[in-house]
């Protein structure tokens, strides 16, 4: 196996990992602090992508589009929290799932009505469209490096906020014992709105960063949301560090599995059998990982709440 290729695939895995982290961070906080299962979290991912694509085509500037699209998804997050999500915190999980599943259908149909079924695509600026030589014969797309850096920066910022600020302290306290925080006189409703909208903005950022690579398309959020749920189950619900570690693990295992599993299986299977079984097994790898972790640590790697 050639080391340059392994290196590139590790970078590809990291890139998938940071996208998953941006999605999972909001999901895990909302789930952990408000005990709210939000299946419609992926809608913010989709909206971020569509809004950014529209702005990029309209303003002819990717940078401006990103700078505008993230606050817009934040505002949408605030509106959805105040208008819809807030009514559901007291409901049980089944009702939350039904209601947020309904939200998915509404969001998908709204997008189809506004932008049509064919999705949106836009070009990256020239400087982001090229390749960069990392060293000797390792070349990697500039834009993917940008995604990794942006994701890591957000992760670092989130870590600093959560573990070194007063708001972060309240978030952590809320995740481990919500009643107690309320009893101490904190305006928990404000905190909920903030966390929900920040989660929406991060999901939107993930969506708009992937849009120039794939495209903005209907249902794109639902596809990745299942994997994001796997990430938070692995990492432990309510834990941002857990979401980060889980996302990196899932990103790397999925990418490396897709890249090298057939070569690996060829060591002890026939050529034909390895070729046909590798795609199936690599699609299952992350779920196998989740099952193994749940067996040994049912609360996840960094589980904060002992249920």
């Amino acid at each position, binding site marked *: 196996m*050639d080391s340059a*290729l392994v290196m590139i695939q590790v970078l590809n895995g990291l*890139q998938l990992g940071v996208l998953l982290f941006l999605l999972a961070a909001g999901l895990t906080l909302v789930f952990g602090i408000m005990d709210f299962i939000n299946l419609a979290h992926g809608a913010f991912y989709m909206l971020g992508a569509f809004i950014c694509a529209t702005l990029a085509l309209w303003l002819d500037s990717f940078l401006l589009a990103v700078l505008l699209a993230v606050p817009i998804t934040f505002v949408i997050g605030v509106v959805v929290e105040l208008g819809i999500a807030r009514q559901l915190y007291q409901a049980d999980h089944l009702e939350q799932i039904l209601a947020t599943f309904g939200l998915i259908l509404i969001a998908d149909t709204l997008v*189809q009505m506004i932008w049509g079924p064919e*999705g949106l*695509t836009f070009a990256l600026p020239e400087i982001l469209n090229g390749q960069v030589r990392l060293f000797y014969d390792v070349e990697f797309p500039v834009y993917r490096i940008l995604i990794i850096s942006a994701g890591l920066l957000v992760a670092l910022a989130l870590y600093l906020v959560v573990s070194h600020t007063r708001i972060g302290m309240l978030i952590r306290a809320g995740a481990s014992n919500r009643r107690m925080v309320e009893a101490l006189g904190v305006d928990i409703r404000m905190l909920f709105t903030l966390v929900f909208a920040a989660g929406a903005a991060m999901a939107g950022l993930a969506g708009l960063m992937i849009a*120039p*690579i794939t495209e903005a398309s209907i249902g794109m959020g639902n596809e990745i949301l299942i994997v994001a749920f796997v990430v938070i189950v692995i990492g432990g619900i309510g834990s941002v560090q857990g979401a980060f570690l889980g996302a990196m693990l899932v990103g790397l295992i999925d990418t490396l599995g897709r890249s090298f599993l057939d070569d690996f299986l060829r060591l002890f299977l026939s050529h034909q059998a390895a070729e046909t079984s590798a*795609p199936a097994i690599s699609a299952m790898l992350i779920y196998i990982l989740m099952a193994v972790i749940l067996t040994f640590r049912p609360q996840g790697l960094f589980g904060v709440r002992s249920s």
Partner: protein
Amino acid sequence: MIKKFIRGALALMILVLPGVGSAESVKIGFVTTLTTGAAVIGNDMRDAVNLAVEDLNGKMGGLDIEVIFADDGFKPETGKQVTDKLVKSDDVDFVAGYIWSHVLLASQKSVLNADKFLISANAGPSQLAGKLCHRDFFSTSWQNDQTPMAMGAVLSQRGVSKLYVMAPNYAAGKNMVAGVERTFKGEIVGKDLTKWGKDAQLDFSAELAKAKASGAEALFVFYPGKAGGAFMKQYEQAGLADKLPLYTVFTVDAISLPKLQQANMKAVLGSLTTGFWGPGLKNPQNARFVEGFLKKFGRYPSFYAAQSYDSIFLINSAVEAVGGDLQDRDGMRAAMEKADFPSVRGSFSYGANHFPIQNFYLLEVVADGNGNWTTEIRSTVFENHQDTYVADCRL
């Protein structure tokens, strides 16, 4: 007063009850994808069907044409459900459409066991061309392997000796890979089958990195629908455009090209693909179809649209041949077997498995006179080509 009421009620009954007072109609169920990102293909097919009905003035053999569209949701189980409904509760005479091979395979029994005609306007799985072939099944497209077989021949002719292959992991993806492997004479240095369906893999970074490192001289891919656009962008971003020439089937088409043009993905201009049809193919029916489509919808029709347009004209030839007597199924079948209708691909004949025996062309992506990106025929790769699975068909 009472008389008036009765007269009114009778008039209302005539309006409401089907079949009372109005001519009998030919009912055609058309199954395609009208939701999810793949709806863009389904909409193209629906537009073509509506155009065909209009061009036939809404009549076949003196009967009104009634088309019922149904959405398969890109899922085999939903496709089978809506097919069952068309066959059982709508009692259609023909079921046509089907973009996806796995959806068609899941649905075919519901139609064929109920003694209805099944016309595939796109999917051409090897099973239906071989062991599962049926006297009431007809295709107005191709068998999946044929188009990639033409591409394999092109690659060999152009002296490519090492090839990397990528396709989605489902029935048609496997057929496409089998097709190119059958005619390509060089070595296949790598192959990736990626996840497909409603949650298909759209980020091909890992696969493209492997392809780049594999030492291949060319890259063959099959990514229909929205995956095609996503693939093309990443191919360009990975810096492969001048290193690893791209050869595609069913990936760069009238559906992905406008979006690629909007995003200014110039790498796609000049890339090669193969197919049974192109908008510039010279014959009267095709000129009528492409002009009519451009005029009505303001965009080029895709090959999906072309095949759908043909499916309505094939059905028309059957209904005309029996003078609108829909009970004469043998007469309709015999008429369809002759392939005696104006096809957008020019004249062709049916093989024993009811798949077309037809030409395949090499197409290049170019900008037309108005600057719109489209595909143009460069040469004929196969003349009167028949699929290989017909040998397994016992009809």
